[in-house]
């Protein structure tokens, strides 16, 4: 799968006129008219208020949901045509509260996809150590702990390590730092931003925090009521005139001195 990805440097993910309705009722539309291309190696941040459809958009990318109209292409193949297990194992996924398995140790959590993919023991163990170091957790200290013995920030680090385990080309992140205290959040954002640049993954990141978007994004997509209302680089984004952009910019100004 990786070899295949390397050859291909175009759009990793592409939305073509995608709409998503609940129970096929057009009046209850969660997303409408979404066209979007995510290119290789970029960090695309989906920004929007709660209920703007950003999580739904993310879940369309790994076949957790399917479009009512239009199509979602991953590596130029529609999610409807993918073997979903294969598709998802090639896409890292990090969510708020991490969703770690409480009955697994940290090492077992990180080793999830390698285990499913039946890597041999030595290779898996080496990969787990490598990843724990990458996310700033000392393997000898943390590998055998259970998730309940970790702080929120440490759990989220494990969540990132687990998502990266099988070296997927794509990483989907749904408000991964949303439930953390402000100090830990800032710390993880900084570290993750450096990590993302180093790894060269294609990342789609959902947040309602403009500051986080400005810090991490190579491109920001703003959603409002299920539609894309703005798309810009972080530098250009704050200069846009759209009212929803202004509303978000105002939220930034409301907290002076906190600009990254």
């Amino acid at each position, binding site marked *: 799968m990786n070899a295949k990805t390397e050859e291909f440097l175009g759009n990793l993910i592409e939305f073509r006129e995608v709409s998503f309705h609940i129970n096929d009722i057009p009046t209850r539309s969660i997303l409408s008219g979404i066209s979007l291309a995510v290119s290789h190696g970029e960090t695309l941040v989906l920004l929007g208020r709660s209920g703007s459809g950003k999580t739904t958009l993310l879940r369309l990318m*790994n076949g957790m949901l399917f479009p009512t109209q239009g199509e979602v292409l991953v590596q130029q193949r529609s999610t409807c045509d993918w073997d979903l297990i294969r598709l998802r194992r090639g*896409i890292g996924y990090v969510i708020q509260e991490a969703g770690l398995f409480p009955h697994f140790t940290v090492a077992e959590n990180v080793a999830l996809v390698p285990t499913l993919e039946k890597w041999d023991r030595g290779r898996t163990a080496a990969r787990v150590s490598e990843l724990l170091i990458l996310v700033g957790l000392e393997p000898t200290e943390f590998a055998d702990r259970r998730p309940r013995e970790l702080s929120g920030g440490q759990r989220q680090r494990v969540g990132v390590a687990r998502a990266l385990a099988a070296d997927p080309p794509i990483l989907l992140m749904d408000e991964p730092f949303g439930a953390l205290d402000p100090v830990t959040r800032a710390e993880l954002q900084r570290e993750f931003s450096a990590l993302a640049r180093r790894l060269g993954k294609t990342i789609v990141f959902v947040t309602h925090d403009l500051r986080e978007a400005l810090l991490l994004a190579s491109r920001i997509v703003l959603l409002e009521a299920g539609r894309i209302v703005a798309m810009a680089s972080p530098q250009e984004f704050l200069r846009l005139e759209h009212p929803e952009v202004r509303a978000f910019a105002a939220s930034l100004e409301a907290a002076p001195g906190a600009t990254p």
Partner: protein
Amino acid sequence: MSPDQSNWSFFAEHRAEIFSATLDHMALVVIAMIIAILIGVPLGMFIVQRPTLRAIALAVASIFQTVPSLALFGFLIPIPFIGGIGKRTAIVALVIYALLPILRNTYVGLTGIDPAVLEAAEAMGMTNAQILFRVRLPLALAVILAGIRTATIITIGVATIAAAIGAGGLGTFIFRGVALVSDSLILAGAIPAALLALLADFLLGLVERKLKVS
């Protein structure tokens, strides 16, 4: 001679009979519980994703539980194959009683899992079978075992009544004691049954605590 002494000497004289009745009783309970677990746990797993079937299964199991046990034994006697006089009928009735707590707890345990954990499992590319056996079941185990524990205690109690249809066990002493107005006989059945229930509760409680995660 005080009544206490007469009880003790009665127990001492009949200890071999009491012991063998206790073994019979345990056999009834163990067989019934194994069958109830073999039906209840897979059925609980099966109804998790099927709301209609779930409503039916839980309703039927609840209704059975409301039937007085003596009446249930009575109803079963005329039924061919599973009915009649003896151990087999008793086991069928005990299974019916044990089923609800096991079924309900299996269902509750499997569905009461942190949604974030299930979402992560799905998104990481686990198949439905992998999610069931590697995530849902291990996380539900403590709750399922709590159901098995409740069911075992109910079964130990209800099994005393199975003597009424000739299934043997500790109930034999109790029924005979009631007929002959003999406290010693009643206690010879009741005390070992109570001790069995306490012991089962304690041991299964230990296992349950071991299995509890987070």
